[in-house]
């Protein structure tokens, strides 16, 4: 096989998912890519899994033996993998046609990135599309670490070599090992977003994501703390509130005596509304950078360990914004390391990176002195504090 078709290894960890696994296997084997190694690491299932796998003998490797859980099974599969690109696909999920081809192209076109991911769907128990996986967005390390796992694991392909640097999946984790490994990789390598639909996650009551409850939330918060150092990362709100709202509402349902049901139902609605509002506000305001490019008075960023000694920051101030003479301060580890001032127009501003940040992921914020709240309509101002347009932040040699 020539270099244009590098070997891709797909590992499926499986345990008693016989009713879904045929669909999963077919979604891998029917990819329009000629060089795939497929390994199923089964945890000694007692259902029809082995029989289904036997139908594809010669086209995949099926290993069935007891393991210590999903992460252990994936790690064992990756250890056997011969491919320079690897992925895992759970036994109830599927790849979409063209996924492997898109991934190989992306990794070949971007030699610096450690992994790639794309768009995906949520599907029901019968394989029907419910919706697009909504959180997916272009790679932003700060959001990945602090806020949400917006990357659909079923679309992720890794360079095998990155595991030598960041290590395998954390086998102590049960719910967030896919997020955690993406955090570790993201802290060292850029992740490449592919605007193509590549995978689907099956949503049903027994699925781990849906059934995780409070233990899942606690594990996710632990993961965020591990990589951000923040006691209460904003993602805690995003993952905690819906789960605890569900738990509280179930309790209200169970504990409310019949005469108080209307009151209980009202309380449930209030909790749901609070949850929705808080999640929305957290998503919108936590980073201080809005989807239209405006930055607030504090914009928070994280970048991989510097590959250069300075940053280039593209900012702009439109003529109509009353912010001429904006002053911004770059702050890391509690101290200001650069200060800049700019007027109306577009500017590329170079900023020297502090020496003590040269070898580690670079956490920093940009604090702006001034802001305005634009008038959305007469008499109504936006809640957002707008300070300047942040077009891009990158390392530059």
């Amino acid at each position, binding site marked *: 096989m020539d270099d244009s078709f590098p070997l891709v290894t797909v590992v499926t960890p499986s345990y008693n998912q016989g009713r879904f696994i045929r669909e999963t296997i077919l979604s891998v084997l029917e990819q329009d890519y000629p060089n795939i190694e497929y390994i199923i690491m089964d945890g000694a299932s007692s259902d029809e899994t082995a029989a289904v796998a036997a139908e594809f003998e010669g086209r995949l490797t099926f290993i069935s033996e007891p393991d210590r859980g999903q992460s252990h099974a994936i790690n064992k599969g990756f250890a056997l993998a011969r491919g320079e690109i690897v992925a895992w696909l759970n036994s109830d999920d599927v790849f979409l046609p063209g996924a492997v081809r898109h991934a190989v192209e992306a990794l070949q076109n971007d030699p610096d990135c450690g992994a790639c991911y794309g768009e995906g769907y949520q599907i029901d128990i019968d394989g029907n599309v419910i919706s697009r996986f909504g959180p997916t967005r272009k790679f932003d390390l700060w959001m990945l670490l602090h806020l949400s796992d917006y990357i659909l694991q079923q679309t992720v392909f890794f360079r095998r070599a990155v595991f030598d640097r960041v290590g395998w999946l954390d086998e102590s984790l049960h719910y967030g090992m896919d997020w955690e490994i993406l955090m570790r990789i993201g802290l060292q390598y850029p992740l490449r977003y592919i605007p193509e639909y590549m995978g689907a996650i099956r949503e049903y009551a027994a699925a781990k994501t849906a059934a995780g409850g409070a233990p899942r939330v606690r594990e996710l918060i632990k993961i965020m703390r591990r990589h951000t150092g923040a006691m209460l990362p904003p993602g805690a709100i995003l993952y905690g509130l819906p789960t605890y709202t569900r738990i509280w509402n179930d309790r209200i349902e169970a504990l409310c005596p019949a005469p108080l049901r209307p009151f209980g139902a009202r309380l449930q609605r209030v909790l749901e509304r609070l949850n929705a509002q808080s999640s929305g506000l957290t998503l919108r305001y936590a980073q201080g950078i809005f989807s239209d490019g405006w930055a607030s008075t504090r914009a928070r960023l994280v970048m991989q360990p510097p590959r250069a000694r300075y940053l280039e920051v593209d900012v702009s101030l439109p003529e109509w914004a009353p912010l001429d003479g904006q002053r911004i301060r770059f702050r890391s580890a509690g101290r200001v390391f650069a200060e800049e001032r700019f007027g109306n127009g577009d500017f590329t501003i170079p900023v*020297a990176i502090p020496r003590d940040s040269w070898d580690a992921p670079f956490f920093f914020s940009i604090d702006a002195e001034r802001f305005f709240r634009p008038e959305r309509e007469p008499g109504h101002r936006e809640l957002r504090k707008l300070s300047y347009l942040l077009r891009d932040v990158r390392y530059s040699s």
Partner: protein
Amino acid sequence: MSGRALPRYAFAVARYGAECANEASLLAAHLARRFQAWSDVEILTTCAGSDRSTGNELPAGHSRVDGVHVRRFALDRPHRARVRFNAESEPSLEDQEAWLRARGPFSSRLVDHLETFGNRYDAFLFVDYRSAHSYFGLPPVEERAFLLPLAHDEAQLGFSMWDRFFERPRGFFFNSPEEERLLQTRFPNLALPGPIASLGLDARADADPNRFREAYGLRHPFLLYLGPIDPAKGCEHLLEDFTSYRAAGGRYRDLAFVGEAHMSLPPRDGVHWIGGPDERTKWDALAACDVVVIPSRNETFSLTALEAWTAMKPVVVSSQAAAVVSQCRRANGGLWYADADELAVVLDLLDEDLRVRLGMQGRSFAAQAGVWSPLETYRAELARVGAANGGR
């Protein structure tokens, strides 16, 4: 520097902005505006707001001036220090450098920026060899540095501090053959590689002489002085010389000074003090006048002369500005004078016939100089360095 579509160049110049009319600022502005068509240009300058300012009159930071990205750095301190030289002996290198710093305006932050971020730029253009930023800022980036010396035949050029300095730049851009000859004479052992890239100008098509004449009540043939109204530019002498000339019944009864004032403006018969012009007023004035007078004795190249010729007007220049006299010779576009008597003679020579002839010859010269041909010279030289440095 991969990923950038355009090469990135920076001009290092002591002062820059609408209120600056010194040769270095004007040249940097003229070039930077045009470089923008094919490069990413930054002006690295100080917070000194005008030609006379000695303090941080403008805020530090990034701004756009006529669309050009300008980055200002705060001055170290108001440059009031005076370093006195003993006329009988060569000052020490330390004294010379102290003189240069004190001469100002000087920002060590600008020099720090060059040291820290030098690799960001494909090339630097240091304007004016006498600028402390050129002297202290060029060495850290000498591999990609060009010097636009703006050298005059002046005592400071003899200082020993320049001996090593003029070895450093990657290349030079000279304003005139006279400037190049002057420097080759001063530094006979140096190669001083670089082209002569005299600039041309874009003429303004909508210039209206009547608009200017009506606005300022100028009904007779008149002389025009264009630029900062400053004793250093010869304006005091011109005022006195013109007053004598007019009193003696000279042909031209009016003289309009158009520019930012840096001296007292005494009321005199026939003298019109007109403030710093916008571009339209400037070209209106050029279209309306009959002769442009350039009394400055220290120029390596006169943009004003080029502007006058572009507007088909003859110039009268100080004979002490050898490079400008040479410019006039090459253009056949003007006359020169040494003192008040010669000025009177020259002006009386300039009847309508001679004015038109000199104006047309000057225009032809300006058209040949063109705007784009010298810019192409810059572009080619800079691209050569970019390629040598591993750029595009």
